[in-house]
């Protein structure tokens, strides 16, 4: 009896969020301008990343600085599987033969990227999920640095720090829209599944949850693998959106943007994850536009480079100060009147 009711009670959230994303896509489609198109693609990719991060961080309450590592794994899978074999041979001569000859469509590469990232999430997670709290967060940071260090140095299969070019570029927004909506539905399905519920119980009351038979380590591992898969697929699509990958594309900068969007929207809320992306992306676009220079009368006024990140950091700190649970708190968009329960803070474990 409980299951169908929770499904019916919460199905509105992913539907509303998908409608919101679709509205963005339609605006982009009608506007029809190339730069705006690219912006909307970036937003959808960011939705995939932030929702992927939310799937783990939101449900488990463990802050992860390492999820962009999975995007890196996925991005390079796209490079390995979709670049024309001839170009691959020059940039990455160390690839095994079967991979060298492989040339698959982009959606298959995204699935493969997700699978590859999920596998490594399982391996890393089996180790990391035994830690908790701050030690776990720092260990995820070490994981990010480890992946970055390997991909920056293993020149025969990743071309080291130079960019790997020649990944087929997909310019239409629809695949990215579908990916973002799929990510939202996967995250929603996980959070109402028995595993997601058990994990959130463990986040809020670890002792009580453990006493009720919740295997916290195992629940966290499941969330880690699912979110790793979403990040991996997102990384592969990211590679297809710009046509090249470098290890530093997927490092601290992207980690910072992704984390700040989740924090601003609300760590414990799926709606917060999506809204955080939409709000901060608009802010970033506005600042990028100002950094490029605005014509005022006869002179061009341009902000110096770096203002965008500084503003992002300041917004993030301000949100943490005045509304630590983020814009959405722990609540979701349900289409009904806001519930009266107080937005609590996500746990620290």
């Amino acid at each position, binding site marked *: 009896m409980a299951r169908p009711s929770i499904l019916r009670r919460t199905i509105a959230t992913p539907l509303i969020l998908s409608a919101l994303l679709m509205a963005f896509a339609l605006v982009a489609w009608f506007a029809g301008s190339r730069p705006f198109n690219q912006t909307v693609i970036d937003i959808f990719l960011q939705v995939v990343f932030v929702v992927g991060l939310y799937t783990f961080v939101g449900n488990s309450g463990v802050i992860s600085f390492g999820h962009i590592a999975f995007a890196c794994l996925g991005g390079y899978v796209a490079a390995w599987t979709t670049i024309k074999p001839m170009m691959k041979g020059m940039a990455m001569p160390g690839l095994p033969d079967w991979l060298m000859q492989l040339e698959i469509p982009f959606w298959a590469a995204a699935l493969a990227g997700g699978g590859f990232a999920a596998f490594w999430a399982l391996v890393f997670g089996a180790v990391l999920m035994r830690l908790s709290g701050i030690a776990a967060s720092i260990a995820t*940071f070490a994981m990010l640095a480890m992946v970055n260090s390997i991909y920056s140095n293993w020149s025969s299969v990743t071309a080291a720090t130079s960019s790997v070019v020649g990944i087929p570029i997909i310019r239409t927004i629809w695949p990215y829209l579908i990916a973002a909506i799929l990510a939202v539905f996967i995250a929603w399905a996980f959070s109402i599944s028995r595993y997601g519920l058990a994990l959130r119980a463990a986040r809020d009351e670890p002792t009580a949850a453990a006493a009720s038979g919740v295997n916290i380590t195992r629940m966290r591992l499941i969330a880690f693998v699912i979110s790793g898969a979403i990040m991996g697929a997102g990384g592969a699509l990211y590679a297809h959106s710009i046509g090249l990958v470098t290890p530093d594309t997927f490092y601290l900068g992207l980690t910072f943007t992704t984390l700040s969007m989740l924090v601003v929207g609300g760590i414990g809320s799926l709606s917060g994850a999506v809204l955080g992306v939409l709000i901060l992306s608009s802010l970033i676009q506005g600042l990028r536009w100002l950094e490029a220079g605005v014509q005022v009368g006869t002179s061009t006024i341009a902000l110096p480079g770096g203002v965008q990140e500084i503003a992002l950091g300041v917004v993030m700190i301000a949100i943490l100060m005045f509304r630590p649970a983020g814009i959405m708190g722990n609540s979701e968009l349900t289409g009904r009147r806001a519930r009266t329960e107080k937005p609590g803070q996500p746990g620290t474990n």
Partner: protein
Amino acid sequence: MGGLMQVVFDALSLGSLYALGALGIALIFGVMRLVNFAHGDVIAFSVFALLWPSVDAVAIIFAGNLPWFLLIPFTLLVGAGLSVLSEMVVFRRFRHANPATMMIASFALGFVIRYFLLMLFSSRPKSISLLPGLSQPVELLGARIPLLQLITILVTIGVLIGLTAFLRRTRFGLEMRAAAENFTMARMLGVRANRVIMGAFALSGALAAAVALILGSQTGTANIMMGASVMLMAFIATVIGGMGSLAGAVIAGFALGTIATVMQVILPPDARAFRDAFVYGAVILVLILRPQGLLAGRGTKERV
């Protein structure tokens, strides 16, 4: 013999760097449970404070031209000042926030500092010559090592002795240790929270500046990302050492330096580029065996 001593000195000097960094992080964690991700950017800021803002590849040395007996205190003051400022402007408002929130806030602050530097200096690394007299080699126990390496080790030992004396012998040190042990209780017994926390931030900032001076003279470059790798190793050292345990942080810092140097020697040449990846891997192994760290700090255990 000479070769072995070379490795020993390399390990000690790299370990010193990590230990100083770890100490700066552990000090702040001890008094307010803040994992300070901005520490690495305080390191970078301290180096750039010696330069005049410009986006050229060649650095315009400004305060860096001071003689060494002024240069060193100046840099230490800059580090301490920035650190105290970040406490007053940002972290003071997070006193009652949970550690995860503070950690994210410090991550954001680090980015603000880094991109502030980027705005003034661009992201290109700049070559600087800081304390150039220190690069000449000296002969010691059959090994030829740069004078700087020797000084790094000696300075670290000096700092450790000084800090121990400060924490054990002075009233302020006593208050700080009391605060690290049980902050609420210490306040009830008359320890002034603001003073102790600002003291911890000032010390931590000065330690960051010391790391900055060593790094700057060692590499001869100023780079807005220069603090990041030391900071990561320092973090790892504090986690392995047991969060909040100062002695543990120092020991773990030296242990990491030793592991990294030994790996540099024993790994086959092809694999040397992956040294850091191996070190991170080793760290994760240690954490599985001892999730609380080698010397678990008090008050960090999960209470039921």
